[in-house]
């Protein structure tokens, strides 16, 4: 965090603040569009639409699912993180990777793998099963990082005050990992709110699927945008809750280095712990891999759509890469602004940027459509629309990655360069950018690979006639052609693996 004195010296580089504010304004604009669009419905229609029993049903479905999945992911994520970080479990490093890898299976691919293998998996419990398996790593990774970097001293003090191991776990360890736990749980619930593909496949209706259906089938824009507004309001409420929960546990540390705790001896609990983790990995990773292998073998005997697979892969990578580069470049000024100045406006700009992660893919897609239809007609159903959608959707991801890269830059090097007579832009080109270049590369890779498995916004925004891996997969599974869909699913999983490994490494290296 820069001190005010340092911040004042940076006033010279006056272009940074307006650029950062402009970028964040663009990225946050979908929020405005959602409201504007919903406003067109008019008061009477709004009341009629919101008063429908459908809303109550959707709310019940969404909240009921979110509550159970959130709880399940919190328990599984915390438990698994504790086992791999704090106990004498054999092969802890390998288990960490195996436990994080389910993130590489997109939710709709996981839905497909269960639905295609077991007819009985559908509806509420199907959704709980599929989403829990998909999302628990989002809790596991931050909690594991917090447990790894947290100081053992507080736990030892608790023990020395006569509290046993379980009481210490409950009264000290758990509260200390609460910010990480809250962050992970927030991500889980945001994913749940925004998910479309998996729920469509499992025949479970939530706000996101209802919006999609209203928009795609009925072309009822006003109704769709009102539902979107409720969805976004729910998401913003969650973000506010998380900010409140995370703020209440501020960790004070000064001077000495944190010492890691000696691992807890599992003893006769080793076998049950191993069995539990094996079962979790088996269900979360083994089932989708088995399903993919099964349908690849089975499907290859009937159809071999290799040409279309190649075309879809190239299209997917092209759009994803374009979006990744754009999002990363756009994130640089915002990240720089926040990094150089710890001032209130700089932090506010950053916070608004992060707020956009509350926007589900469907809301972003509808906002982009609304914008194109009203103000940029020639762009409607053209490639820039899809890229713009991706950029808005994955901007927070890019910002986090760029910020992580900037955190590696030693504080003061920019000032040192300035004091040697270098002008601000030259400092950026000669000092800052070379230092963060590897980090920017990682940001591009991360955003690109994530975007390549995006389904919801892609379905709504893709240019006419363009097929990506996700849309081809969707077309085949909608026709119940599970074998034909398998190559696309396998490719998406393979594309996701590097970004998951990258994410795992980054999450466990940094403190929070």
């Amino acid at each position, binding site marked *: 965090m820069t001190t005010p004195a340092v911040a004042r010296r940076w006033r010279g580089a006056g272009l940074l603040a307006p650029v950062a504010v402009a970028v964040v304004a663009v990225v946050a604009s979908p929020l405005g569009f959602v409201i504007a669009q919903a406003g067109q419905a008019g008061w009477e229609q709004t009341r009629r639409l919101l008063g429908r029993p459908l809303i109550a049903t959707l709310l019940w479905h969404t909240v009921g699912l979110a509550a159970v999945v959130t709880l399940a992911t919190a328990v599984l994520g915390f438990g698994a993180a504790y086992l791999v970080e704090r106990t004498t479990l054999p092969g802890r490093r390998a288990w960490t990777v195996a436990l994080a890898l389910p993130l590489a299976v997109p939710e709709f691919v996981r839905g497909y793998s269960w639905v295609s293998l077991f007819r009985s998996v559908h509806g509420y419990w199907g959704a709980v099963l599929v989403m829990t398996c998909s999302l628990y790593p989002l809790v596991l990774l931050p909690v594991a990082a917090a447990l790894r970097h947290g100081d053992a001293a507080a736990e030892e*003090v608790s*023990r*020395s*005050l006569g509290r046993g191991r379980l009481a210490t776990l409950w*009264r000290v360890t758990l509260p*200390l990992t609460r910010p990480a736990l809250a962050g992970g749980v927030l991500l889980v619930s945001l994913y749940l709110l925004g998910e479309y593909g998996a729920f469509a496949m499992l025949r479970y209706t939530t706000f996101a699927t209802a919006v999609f259906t209203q928009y795609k089938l009925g072309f009822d824009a006003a109704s769709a945008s009102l539902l979107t507004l409720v969805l976004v309001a729910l998401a913003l409420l969650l973000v506010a809750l998380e900010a409140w929960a995370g703020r209440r*546990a*501020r960790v004070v540390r000064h001077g000495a280095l944190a010492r890691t705790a000696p691992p807890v001896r599992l003893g006769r609990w080793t076998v049950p712990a191993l069995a539990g983790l094996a079962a979790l990995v088996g269900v979360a990773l083994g089932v989708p891999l088995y399903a993919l292998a099964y349908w690849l073998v089975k499907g290859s005997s009937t159809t071999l759509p290799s040409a279309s697979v190649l075309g879809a892969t190239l299209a997917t990578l092209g759009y994803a890469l374009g979006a990744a580069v754009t999002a990363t470049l756009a994130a640089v000024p915002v990240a720089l602004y926040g990094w150089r100045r710890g001032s209130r406006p700089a932090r506010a700009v950053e916070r608004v940027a992060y707020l956009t992660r509350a926007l589900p893919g469907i809301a972003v897609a509808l906002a982009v459509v609304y914008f194109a239809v009203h103000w940029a007609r020639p762009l409607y159903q053209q490639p820039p629309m899809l890229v713009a959608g991706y950029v808005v959707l994955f901007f927070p991801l890019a910002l986090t990655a760029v910020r992580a890269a900037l955190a590696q830059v030693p504080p003061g090097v920019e000032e040192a360069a300035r004091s040697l007579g270098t002008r601000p832009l030259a400092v950026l080109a000669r000092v800052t950018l070379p230092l963060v270049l590897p980090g920017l590369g990682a940001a591009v890779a991360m955003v690109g690979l994530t975007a390549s498995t995006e389904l919801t916004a892609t379905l709504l925004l893709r240019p006419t006639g363009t097929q990506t891996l996700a849309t081809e997969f969707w077309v085949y599974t909608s026709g119940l052609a599970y074998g034909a869909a398998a190559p696309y699913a396998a490719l998406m999983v393979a594309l996701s693996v590097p970004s998951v490994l990258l994410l795992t490494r980054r999450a466990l290296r940094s403190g929070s």
Partner: protein
Amino acid sequence: MTGPSVGLTVTDLHAAHGRSPVLHGIDLTVPEGALACVLGPSGCGKSTLLRVLAGFHPAAAGQVVLHGRVLDDGRDRLAAEHRGIGLVPQDGALFPHLSVAANIGFGLPRSQRRARVAELLELVGLPGLGERRPHQLSGGQQQRVALARALAPRPRLLLLDEPFAALDAALRAELRREVAATLRQSGTTAVLVTHDQDEALSFADTVAVLRDGRIAQCGSPDELYHRPVDPAVARVLGEANLIPCEGAGGAARTAFGPLAPAAPGAVSGSGLALLRPGQLRLTAEPVAGAVPAKVLGCDFRGHDHRVELRPEAAGLPEVLVAAADRAWPVGGEAYVAAVGPVHVLPGA
């Protein structure tokens, strides 16, 4: 209990980190109610010793006994939560999610909390701060809360792991005095671990110098400072001039002339005479027994000047350190004389 009974006894304690041994046979006795200090450089094993006592690290062999109860004998180990040993870690390690009062009351049964917490806040001089959060306190206040928290369940032994290291110098000395007074007032047996000799000498009744996993010497601060068993212990406790000497009929013969030995009895054979900087007197003119020397450096320390000199005589180390009342010009000449009595270390 009446009289100074034994509080903590450590006998032939061995401990290891994985395969590398850290402690090789520690013997240490701390009387009940005494303040003991384990002094040593970083990496000497003092933190491991503390963690074995607290029950966070297993002993490989040996015995730890507190008030007649065996805590660890290399085979059976009493869990940390059943030992009744308080711990004040280096930076306090307050629970950041709890208020000051909840931190202090953490180890107390619910019914006693209110009264005892108020009592302890009073004891550590922080009345009225019970509702604060740890991050709202200064470093010194945090350490006081950590002390209050450890004292709350009336531990039979209190362990302090460099508790003042993160504080600035002035506050460190003040808090050290306060804590020592607090512990004496409550009659708590305590073991402090530190690498700071000032802290060790001013805090403790008994100081144990730990070196390479062994206790090199154990005794009162005065004993250790003035009568160390070897040159290394002499240097750990403060700056030392070690002058070769020969025993000659009840006196130690040195380059400064014969000096009276501190301990009565004849000095025999060759040895090293220990002269603390305060025992060297500097004069501008030659006096009896004085050795001419060149002033290499002079640092003002407020209460005195630390003067480094190169003696121009045989049988002396290359550099001598003296404490002088006034500044000496660097590069100038001075005459150094020694004031006895001296402690003689055997064998050079």
